């Protein structure tokens, strides 16, 4: 990204996003706390999840170094490339947590959480589709910053799919236990 105005806009957007996320977490928690609480089993699982996510991002960043050293030009800007790695890390973290019952906190209101995820996913998907329609997502043979919206939508959809699959797996297992 060589445009300082665009970079500043993105930076402000990210900071605003983080502030909004903090307030959404507070709204999402039943006790209106800023922090989601987890029990001991969940904390242990989350520790492993952070570990896997960390190594995933490390490995991908290492690959990126060699991609750069070999002079391979990726069909996306540097900002999009690094954001993609962050999203992959988050997906690894979330999927591991979901599969080990460590994603939903003790004080999480699932109804509110679902509303937030669906709304955020829809907004990002819509912004991504509009960018495709405007032709701003692909320029100079590279994916541009608006692709980040599609990535966020993909991340939220992936989390929703894994949560649904986990719920189905739990129900199947409980049905098996009852028999």
């Amino acid at each position: 990204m060589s445009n300082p105005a665009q970079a500043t806009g993105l930076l402000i957007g990210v900071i605003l996003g983080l502030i909004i996320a903090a307030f959404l977490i507070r709204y999402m928690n039943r006790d209106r706390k800023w922090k989601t609480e987890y029990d001991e089993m969940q904390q242990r699982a989350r520790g492993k999840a952070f570990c896997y996510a960390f190594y995933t991002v490390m490995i991908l960043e290492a690959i990126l170094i060699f991609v750069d050293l070999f002079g391979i030009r990726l069909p996306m800007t540097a900002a999009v490339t690094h954001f993609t790695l962050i999203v992959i890390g988050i997906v690894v973290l979330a999927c591991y947590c979901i599969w080990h019952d460590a994603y939903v906190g003790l004080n999480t209101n699932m109804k509110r959480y679902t509303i937030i995820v669906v709304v955020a996913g829809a907004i990002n998907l819509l912004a991504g589709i509009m960018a495709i329609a405007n032709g701003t997502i692909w320029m100079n043979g590279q994916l541009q910053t608006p692709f980040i919206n599609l990535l966020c939508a993909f991340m939220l959809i992936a989390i929703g799919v894994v949560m649904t699959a986990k719920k189905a797996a739990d129900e199947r297992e409980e049905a098996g236990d009852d028999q």
Partner: protein
Amino acid sequence: MKNLQMKAARAAMDLSQQDLAERVGVSRQTINAIEKGDYNPTINLCRAICKELGRTLDELFWETD
């Protein structure tokens, strides 16, 4: 190894996994994992479960052949 003693003690008090989980401050999934033998709880959680179910540590968490 499944913790059948804990499951029986909970059932004897007519508590669901969710009820016990709320009383000891953990998730239902954690209680389920302990009963299935998938998770070894810390001594603090063992004590909290024993207090709620009115049993001793030996009764609930000591392996019997």
